[in-house]
Structure formats: structure tokens, C-alpha cells
């Protein structure tokens, strides 16, 4: 599990809350998981600098954790805070969709 904290305001469409708790579920160090983590970090740095917190859960190491957030797809990013809970599946390569999924951008 990795923890990463950073700060800084993002240039988003609507005012973002101050704390962002994000959890990324992966299964081993697959290219997809690595890509997802890299993509996520990039987006957060860009939009939520200093306000976010990423937790990476490797289900191969902790399989029992899959039930808690109802994880089926890998990789899945779960936005724990701010509510409501949001789930974003895939390798997060589509930045626009990630922003929409995280409510950082209005759905067009």
C-alpha cells in the first residue's frame, strides 16, 4: 500500500472540497494497474494538488478487502470522500471521463 499526500488547488469547473480520499484497487503489478496509478497521480496533481489522499489496495495481498467496496472490476478507483461514493473503473486513461467521474467536471 502506498500513501501519497499532496496539496494545491486545481482549476476545476466547480469549487472542490478540501479533502479527497481516493482508493485505488489493483491486483498485482500489472501494466493496467501501473498505468492506472500513473494516470491517477497525474490527474490529482493537476486538479487536486494538496487536497488528496490516495490509498492503493492490492487485492492479491488482501483479497478479503474486495467485498467492502464491492469491487469486481480491476482497476477500480473509489472516491470515498467527498460523498457520495463514486467508482471509476478502467486504467483511467480517459482523463475526461475520470474528471467527470470525480465530479471535477460537469457531464457534457
Amino acid at each position, binding site marked *: 500500500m502506498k500513501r501519497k499526500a499532496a496539496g494545491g488547488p486545481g482549476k476545476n469547473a466547480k469549487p472542490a472540497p478540501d479533502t479527497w480520499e481516493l482508493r485505488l*484497487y489493483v*491486483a498485482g503489478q500489472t501494466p*493496467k494497474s501501473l498505468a*492506472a496509478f500513473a494516470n491517477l497521480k497525474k490527474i490529482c496533481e493537476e486538479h487536486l494538488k494538496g487536497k488528496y489522499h490516495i490509498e492503493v489496495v492490492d*487485492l*492479491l495481498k488482501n*483479497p*478479503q478487502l*474486495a*467485498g467492502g467496496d*464491492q*469491487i*469486481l*472490476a*480491476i*482497476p*477500480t478507483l473509489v472516491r470515498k470522500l467527498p460523498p*457520495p*461514493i*463514486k*467508482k*471509476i*473503473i*478502467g*486504467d*483511467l*486513461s*480517459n482523463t475526461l*471521463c*475520470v474528471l*467527470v*467521474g470525480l465530479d471535477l467536471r460537469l457531464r457534457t
Partner: protein
Amino acid sequence: MAKEKTKLLRGSLQKVPTGIVGLDEITNGGLPKGRPTLVCGGAGSGKTLLGMEFLVRGATQFNEPGVFMSFEESAEELTKNVASLGFDLNRLTASKRLLVDYVHIERSEIEETGEYNLEGLFIRLGNAIDSIGAKRVVLDTIESLFAGLPNPSILRAELRRLFRWLKKKGMTAIITGERGDNTLTRHGLEEYVSDCVILLDHRVANQISTRRLRVVKYRGSIHGTNEFPFLIDERGIVVMPITSLGLKHTVTSQRISTGIPRLDTMLGGKGYFRGSTILVSGTAGTGKTSVAAHFVDAACRRGERSVFFAFEESPSQIIRNMRSIGIDLQHWVEKGLLTFHAERPTVYGLEAHLASMEKIIDLFKPKVVIVDPVTNLISVGSEADVKAMLIRLLDQMKSNQTTALFTTLTGAGGPLELTEVGTSSLTDTWLLLRDIEIGGERNRTMYILKSRGMAHSNQIREFLLTGKGVDLIDVYVGPSGVLTGSARISQESQERDIESMHQQEIVRKKLNVETKRKALEAQIASLRAQVQAEEQELKKLTGQEKMRQNGVSKLREKIAGMRKEDENSERRKR
């Protein structure tokens, strides 16, 4: 080479018993071991229950723990739902024989942002399987994923991978799927799971719903291909394969009384065969139930248990009515020898009736079973269905050497010898009750249409319902045909009159002759006396003559002596 390999596999196809009543018979032993089986059907067809029962039976009867992965209902809901069937999921979960995992996906929460796979599901399922050492898996219903997750093409590829993975893990799995419009499942799961496909159906015909099960496909195994009715009761799923019982029952030549002495006489003097099937058919009001009641009464008198399935009258009504002909069924009920089971046929479907009847028979173990009347069951099923049900019921009873008596109502005006459900070929003894209309009266008659394996009377008997039960009387068969009722009585009295007239005539003639004889005898006696008198007279005359002759010769000698006649005189010589 490849062919040989499949052949070998076929021979060695292992099966896992489901423990579901009847299903293992149809599938010849159960589901394919280590392979996924697709169970599809519409809403409310019993897919979830079949899956759950597969796991519960596996855990309790075959020591095979199971994982139930539910995509629709939560564990609490499932537990509550199956509790009514006697499945205690909490106990099984606590003892680690069952694991229910509720997978919930909310489409609105999910955003797809690129390539993904279902590794999370695999890990979750794998973890569940490993934690209890599961051998059985149920996925109910995995098609919900199509609604919850975007990008069906990825999903399809992942499902294919999932089933392969399950096979590799050696899991005997049930995958449920919602029935599609033209396909077995809405999302074509049958493309991936093709070893065994079971189709569940829930059909309504004539306002009565019937659940049916069909094994569409079973790779590498023979299986029953028919649609089999099944029902869900407190035993869980009960499939009723009609073909499961054959004509293998042994028979006995023991005979049992019909309860009507005269009828016993008609049946070769001993009554029905034990374990045979008796059909009593007739139009309305011909006394079918009374014949049945007599038989029950006789069985109870012998101390045998009987079950009376009534589809027309309530038990108390039957008891009251039978009391009027002198049969007290109440005290047999109180003694526990007789049990009534009365139900309107329309309360549920045929297979439910069959199941409940089988259950009662299993429970009560009767020697005599009455179904009164079977024809009422037609209101809930087609003729063919009822016949199939009866065959099944009869086979079961015959194998237990239970004697069954069915009554059937034949419509007035229809051919009497045609039973509505075509049960005639199933029965061993067939009593036909019919009305004969003569002289403004309707009278009951009875005859034996057939009775397999015994000599029986071919005569029509008049059938009387008296205060002491059924009585059978010879009908009048004379030059003017068959007479019954008062026509018979008047004919008989007429005959009696003629008869007595004849007899008087004879007596008179006899007397005549007697007097004549007496007169003649008297005459003979007087004549004889006359003859005697004359004979006497004759004797007297002869005597006198002798004496006279004697006197004459003596006189002559005297004279001769006096005349000194010589010895050789003419006179002396004379």
C-alpha cells in the same frame, strides 16, 4: 484419435448429485462434476432456489461446501426467503459449510475510463472458495453484471475467462440466467456454459400455473428430455419424473373383500386383488362414493389404514352421507385408521396435487387409497396430464401393494365405457354403475366390465342403497327384457301369482286323481269280495257234490253187496 478421446471422456463423466428430489433421476446422477451448468428461466421460475438447494443439499448430504454468489439478493434476504423451506443458512454459514456473498453494483456510481477486467470478482470468488474449501459454486445471476458494468465486450470476454477458471478450479457450478426473448438467456450465456443446460418454466394454463423443468442439453450424458413438472414445497424443489417408475412391481394373489358380500361373490367369491387398481365409473348419483365407502369400511374392519382423497365433498359431508346407508366412517377416523384429505382440485396444479398425495401416502402408509373422483382433476390439467399423473400415482401405489380405488364420473349421454381420463387401460377391475330407466323410474344397476386375472360374473345386478348398505339383487331377465325396481317387483309378483295358480291347479288335479283312485280301489275291493263269495259258493257246491258222489257209490256197493254182484260186472268196472 480425437473421437476416441471424447468417447473415453464420456465414459468417465463424473456426476455430482444435487440431492434435489427427482432431478438426479432425470439427469442420471446429477450435474457434471467440475463443470458449470446453466439454469435459465423467467422471473419466479425457481432458479435461485434450485441453486440454493444444490448448495444446501451439497453441504448437508454430500459434505461438499458451497459458495453462493448473489448478484441480486442480499444474504439476509436470501436467508429469509429460503427459511420457509427449512434451510437454515445461518447455521450452515456458521459451520463454514456455506458462504453467501452478495455482490452489489450500482450503475450510477460507476464510470468507465478505459480498459479493465473482472479480476476483482475472481479474487473475491477465489477467496470465498478457499476460505471454506468449497466444491460447489452458484452464481445468481451473473447477467446482472451486464446491467451494472459498461462495455459488454469486455464483460463477455471476462465471463468466458471466469467459466474457464471455474472449470480449472474443479468447481461444480450453477450459473443462473434470465430467459431471453428468443434465446435461452438474455445475454447469451449459453454460448459460454454449454456442458449442461436446464430450463425452468412457469406456465399458466386455465388460470393454473405449473412449473416445469427440462434438461435442454447435457453434454456427454444421457438424460430425460421431457418437460417434467416440478413444485416448490417445504421439501424444496420436487421434480416428478413420470418415467422414473416402471412396470416392475411384484404382484400378490391375495384377495381382499370389497365390503359388499354380493360383489365379492361376483368377483369369484373373494373380492379384489390386493394391490390392484379398481375403477368405479358411472353417471351422477349412481352410488360410486358408496361403493368406495364400503371398500374403506371393509379395509378398516381388517385393521388396514386407508386414505380417502375427496375432490368433491368435504369429509364431514361424506361421513354424514355414508351414515345414511349404515356405514360409520367417523369411528374409523377416530381410531386413526382412516384419514380424509379433501381439497378442491383448483387450489393448485396437478403436480402439487400429486406431490401432496404422494406425501400423504408416504406418511400414512395406507393399504387402501380412494380418489373420489379423479375426473375432477381434469379441471386443473389436460387429459394427458391427468393420465400421466395417475400413472405415476398408480405405479407408486402398486409398488407398495396399495389397493387403489378411483371413481370417475361419466357424462350423461356419453359412451359409458369411455372414461374421461383414459384410465381404463390402467385399471385391473372396472365396475360400471349405470341407471336404467323403466316405467318412469330410474334404477341403479351394476356390472363388472372387466376384472383382470379372476373369474367374474357377467351379469347385471340391481344395485340398492339400503339403510344397511349396498345390496345387490338379481335383476329380472325375462322375455320382456331387463327389469329393475318396481317393474321388477310387479313382474315378480305377477310371476308369483301365475306360479301359485299353477300350483293350485296341480293340487286340485292331484285330489281328483286321488278320489278317482280311491273309488276304483273301493270298486276293486267289492269285486274281490264278490269273487270270494262266489268262490266260497263254488267250494260248497264241490263239497256237496263229493259227498253226494260218495254217498252214491257207497249206496251202490251196498246194493251190489246185497245183489251179490260178481267182481267183473260191468258196473264194477265203471
